[in-house]
């Protein structure tokens, strides 16, 4: 007799597929928020599984800050072609040009906060009622309380004190005109689960996750990549290092770690020995203890 239980990765996969199918059934116009990072790639992979042999029945949406790693954009375009789905792009540059937001100044300026406006604008103009994200509860303490189906008011805001209770796996996606939901199918995955699964399924991810030689500068305890946007401080120096990235955000703020891990197996091994959270290398989360919560309340991913 075969065993009648699932291992933890199969159970997580099944749960995520269940959530994705609920989204499709309960909303008129969902999208997957696709950043080109491993979590959104994973969600896309799971969506492919959830609706096979049909194509993913909704578009991918990318909030483009203009400060991308070139590798990310190429990866995005390739995956869109392969899946045969529509891509919606919300452009932060356009939001700046239209005067919707103002660029931050100084050496630590990022377009991170500006994304919120672009994202909410794109949700509104495309009449999106559910944006599926790759957020995980283990990422950050404000995320630990997220629901699978997370309600946003008509300003796109999250109210952590007034969330809908979520019992069993009965998800309530009912909403009024102008409101939308965020859905998080991989809520229960940890960073380690993600890597173990990517390895098991041999999912393609951008080359940036693998150790490679790159021009970088040491800043805020990590290696920030050289790019056209980098403003060098006097004492700072560009060097070439073998690095890889644990998360992918804007090229201006995503710090790499020195590493020799150039295969999925080596990455999984490296991650299992890590003593820092993946967000420890992102300067956007370092600004204050509640940085993430503040951004989430306003409508961040």
């Amino acid at each position: 007799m075969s065993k009648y239980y699932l291992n933890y990765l199969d159970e997580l996969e099944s749960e995520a597929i269940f959530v994705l199918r609920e989204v499709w059934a309960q909303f008129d116009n969902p999208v997957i928020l696709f950043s080109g990072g491993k979590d959104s790639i994973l969600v896309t992979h799971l969506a492919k599984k959830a609706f096979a042999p049909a194509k993913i029945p909704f578009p991918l949406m990318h909030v483009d800050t203009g400060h991308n790693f070139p590798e990310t954009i190429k990866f995005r375009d390739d995956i869109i072609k392969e899946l045969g789905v529509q891509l919606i792009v919300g452009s932060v540059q356009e939001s700046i040009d239209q005067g919707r937001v103002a660029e931050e100044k100084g050496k630590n300026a990022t377009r991170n906060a500006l994304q919120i406006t672009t994202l909410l604008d794109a949700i509104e103009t495309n009449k999106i009622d559910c944006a599926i994200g790759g957020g995980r509860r283990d990422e950050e303490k404000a995320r630990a309380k997220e629901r699978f189906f997370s309600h946003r008011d008509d300003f796109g805001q999250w109210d952590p004190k007034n969330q809908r209770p979520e019992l069993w796996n009965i998800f309530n996606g009912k909403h009024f005109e102008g409101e939308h939901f965020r859905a998080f199918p991989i809520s229960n995955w940890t960073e380690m689960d993600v890597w173990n699964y990517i390895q098991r399924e041999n999912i393609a991810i951008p080359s940036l996750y693998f150790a490679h030689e790159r021009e970088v500068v040491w800043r805020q305890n990590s290696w920030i990549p050289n790019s056209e946007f980098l403003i060098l401080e006097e004492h700072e120096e560009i060097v070439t290092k073998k690095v890889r990235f644990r998360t992918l955000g804007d090229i201006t703020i995503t710090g790499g770690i020195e590493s020799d891990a150039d295969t999925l197996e080596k990455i999984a091994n490296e991650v299992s020995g890590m003593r820092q959270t993946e967000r420890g290398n992102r300067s956007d989360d370092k600004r204050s203890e509640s940085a993430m919560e503040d951004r989430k309340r306003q409508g961040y991913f």
Partner: protein
Amino acid sequence: MIDNNQLLRFTTAGSVDDGKSTLIGRLLYDSKSIFEDQLEAIENTSKKKGHEGVDLALFTDGLRDEREQGITIDVAYRYFTTPKRKFIIADTPGHIQYTRNMVTGASTANAAIILVDARHGVIEQTKRHSFIASLLQIPHVIVCVNKMDLVDFSEDAYNNVINQFEEFSSKMLVKDVRFIPISALLGDNVVNRSENMDWYQGAPLLHTLETMHISSDINKVDARFPVQTVIRPQSDDENRDYRGYAGRVEGGIFRPGDEITVMPSGFTSKIKSIDNYSGELKEAFAPMSVSITLEDDIDISRGDMIVRSNNKPKATQDIEVMLCWLNNSPSRPRTKYSIRHTSNDQKAMIKEIVYKIDIETLERNKEDKTLHMNDISKVKIRTTKPLMIDEYRENRTTGSIILIDDTTNETVAAGMIV
């Protein structure tokens, strides 16, 4: 990690200050699941608040309001992994909105840890928590007698708690209860065996969680497949003839060739194939997400349930449930609510409040006919169309419902079908 490792979900219950947050912090810390930058943040906050050393409780007290008020306000989920299992903790707060939050955390849990302060023994709160655990049919309950360091690690104090607990819990439906004497603060019997309590022969908490048998917690007998959505590729697709019913097996085992009935229509057919992305499967059991194709072309949509023809759930418009009210605004008599049961959405009215349970005394109150937040009551509900139900104790998925208020779209109540 080994391929066969299972996922275990548990929830923690205890009164304010019994040590829930400390225990979770201890589990995470001793199992090396806290990262350095998280630890640093906690150390900084501990210092600011004037604690000596690290206050492990801070690790789970997440949102800003809580950090400022020093209390937990909602259900938060925590994760850790050992070489044997992956764990999901539903961390529920111990004060006012307690019932609602514990019910939420308990709804998906395989196990509940109930904390008792060794100095105080079993108190009303403990009874309340045990009652909720039994109401939500959490298969395994572990009573952790905490703060043993404050009672000189005394075996008598521990045995007192066991006796008190067994006295009242005999009336409840808790299948598997275990007791462990611990000190969450010092770590005794949490991850590592205590050196201060030789008299305790049992396993520490983590070992218990790692080894408890959970695969038989899921119903393997009554085959249930609520249809979430229909998969039909577009007309230009090579698979355009495919028509699969997508859903998750919520009970029993399905195999190709099984004689099935579609409820509520009553149409019968045979399973042609059970598919997932990788191909056709020989069988599917809970909680697998699959799609099912049938031999016959019948009209099936979301809200229908595929079951084996020789074992059907009850189809009825009248259900009796143990209802937990979750919302700030009380129930309104003669009001239509939306009811959701698996993927089935209907309208419903609460016809009768049979009794309310006084959560302090566990006595029944038949006079009070309004449901307020945190109330637990037995009610009769009438739905506009039949639901295909099992009793909650047979199946936690096909035996549960939620009520939604159409004027606010909020989830106002959760119910267990009796």
